[in-house]
């Protein structure tokens, strides 16, 4: 199993690098600019606390892209270069293979969110009053970002399981939250469901569809015989 | 000794012929061990069962004997048996030639004549 995990991490190396850049980039670059300003001008436009909270949320938002890539790449990448056929000649059952991929995808997802939330709340807490800071920068965007992330990964993963193109899978993954939002908007404004709670429905459906997509992708992979 | 899989002579026969020739020429003397089946199979790149069949054939003809766990050894009368075997192989080749002549509707006289011509050419002194 550890060999499979190593292989899956290595196969997704580029995606992991992009993920690291999108997550840590804004934080490091932002902090660098602030330090420079501090040295140059002696004063900052906003407190550190705000900065960490804001940039943390921003990074997590940006990381949605890398999560979509991760989900879409997971299974289809080995079909694209046909290395899945090589793996099919080896003893590991399809269950083990998909388990390894799921662990990597979910693990990396949790890692990104762990770091992002850690910065948003942790560093912000060290610098000042977290709740206030988060409220000031409209950190209520966080739940929406989280729900979107689940949908992205789930949709990308499902398509990745069915097709052999990581690009299409990631693309559909990215498109899915937009489509969901558009669908709900149409229902609310065009069909006149005025009291439709967008926040609630978007959140519920995003998570629901994301988890279902993920499970569906696993089931489809297990039932399929061809690599 | 390369084996020719495309030849019409079965591979085990080719192997037997070669070993027979080697024994007749004195490369392997009576009592000396012959290559193991596995070693010969790997050297010639053929199925070990084929080598085993060749060895069985030669054992039947009295050219060699096998000792369980030790391998095959040239038999005491091995050299003589090898030469007899060679004689049989020569006759078989002659038989082929005769068949060829008959199929072409050559008379027995002309077949024999062809043989004698070839004999002179092969064994006579080369002309300048």
């Amino acid at each position: 199993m550890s060999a499979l995990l190593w292989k899956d991490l290595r196969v997704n190396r580029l995606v992991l690098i992009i993920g690291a850049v999108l997550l840590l980039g804004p934080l490091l670059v932002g902090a660098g600019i602030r330090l420079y300003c501090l040295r140059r001008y002696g004063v900052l436009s906003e407190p550190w606390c705000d900065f960490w909270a804001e940039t943390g949320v921003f990074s997590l938002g940006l990381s949605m892209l890398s999560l979509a890539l991760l989900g879409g790449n997971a299974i289809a990448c080995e079909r694209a270069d046909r290395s899945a056929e090589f793996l099919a000649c080896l003893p590991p059952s399809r269950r083990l293979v998909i388990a390894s991929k799921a662990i990597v995808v979910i693990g990396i997802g949790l890692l990104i969110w762990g770091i992002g939330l850690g910065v948003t709340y942790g560093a912000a807490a060290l610098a000042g009053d977290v709740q206030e800071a988060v409220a000031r920068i409209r950190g209520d965007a966080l739940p929406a970002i989280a729900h979107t992330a689940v949908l992205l990964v789930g949709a990308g993963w499902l398509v990745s399981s069915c097709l052999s193109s990581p690009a299409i899978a990631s693309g559909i993954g990215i498109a899915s939250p937009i489509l969901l939002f558009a669908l709900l908007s149409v229902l609310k404004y065009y069909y006149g469901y005025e009291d439709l709670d967008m926040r609630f429905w978007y959140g519920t459906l995003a998570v629901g569809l994301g988890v279902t997509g993920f499970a569906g992708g696993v089931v489809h992979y297990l039932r399929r015989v061809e690599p | 000794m390369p084996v020719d899989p495309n030849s019409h002579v079965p591979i085990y026969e080719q192997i037997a012929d070669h070993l027979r020739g080697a024994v007749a020429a004195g490369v392997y003397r009576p009592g000396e061990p012959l290559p193991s089946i596995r070693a010969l199979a790997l050297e010639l790149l053929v199925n070990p069962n084929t080598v085993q069949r060749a060895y069985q054939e030669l054992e039947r003809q009295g050219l060699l004997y096998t000792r369980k766990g030790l391998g095959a050894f040239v038999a005491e009368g091995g050299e003589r048996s090898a030469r007899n075997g060679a004689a049989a192989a020569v006759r078989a080749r002659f038989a082929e030639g005769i068949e060829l002549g008959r199929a072409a509707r050559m008379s027995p006289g002309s077949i024999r004549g062809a043989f004698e011509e070839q004999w002179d050419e092969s064994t006579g002194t080369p002309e300048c």
Partner: protein
Amino acid sequence: MSPRGRRSAEMGDDTMTSPAIEMEELTRRFGDQTAVKGLSLAIPAGSTFGFIGPNGAGKTTTIRMLMGMLRPTAGRARILGIDVARDPAAMKQRVGYVPELHYIYRWMRVGEAVRFCRSFYRTWNDELSAELLELFELDRGKRVKHLSKGMVAKLALLLAVAHEPEVLILDEPTSGLDPIIREEFLDGVLRTLCARQRTVFFSSHTLSDVQRLADTIGILYGGQLLAVRPTDELVNGTKRIRAVLPDGAAPARPPAGTIWQRVERREWLLTVTGYTPRTLDHLREHNPVDNVEIIDVGLEEVFKDFVRGQRVSA
């Protein structure tokens, strides 16, 4: 003789051991095309089976079904008694497979690929693996994408045999390889063969390789087995007969075992399997022939005549 009848003959007195590879009415359809039609075959443990047939005959499809990589439309395949559709993981522990096209992870180094595969097999032999790495002159640090085609083929063979499989399955193993690498490959396969009770099943276009290695040969055409015979019997027991017919005469009854025949002017050419002197008697008895010549044929001609005979009767 049907393949099943041949199976009993081949198994001889060792009927206590079940066959290493068993195919029961294996069928695969792609749309309205049937690639493999009700293939039934039993290969005893310890034998080497050569699978020959023209391109598109269904050899690769059959092998993929054997390895559980393609679901049969009908029928079953068992390797070492394990149903390949039901428990492929257990089967793959004991089977080595070398496909026709190699898709080893190109970013892996040779050493990494070896360690990767090693982790999955309980029976991996480190000594054998090191020995083969040296024999095949494979550089542990080189990435697969930088290896030549022949080197990749050798690596694939190493990964398939280093865990000492009881069954080795190869699909066109030496196609496109230069003569030197082909020899190294055959050497590698033989080392597996030489170990006790190892079964080898391979498909190949290189008929000389088949003659060297195979105990039994199966000829596949249009998804069906035309013949399953021991190699010697197929090659040495098949003869071409050239008979001369008198003016205006035609052949009346070709002897049993005729797989192909052709009449041109006064010459009647036919290829007969299972040739015995009785065949000649039968020929003379039932047909007006003047002159008869028996010609030895090699595996290539036998194979071609089987296929030609099928095409004529189709």
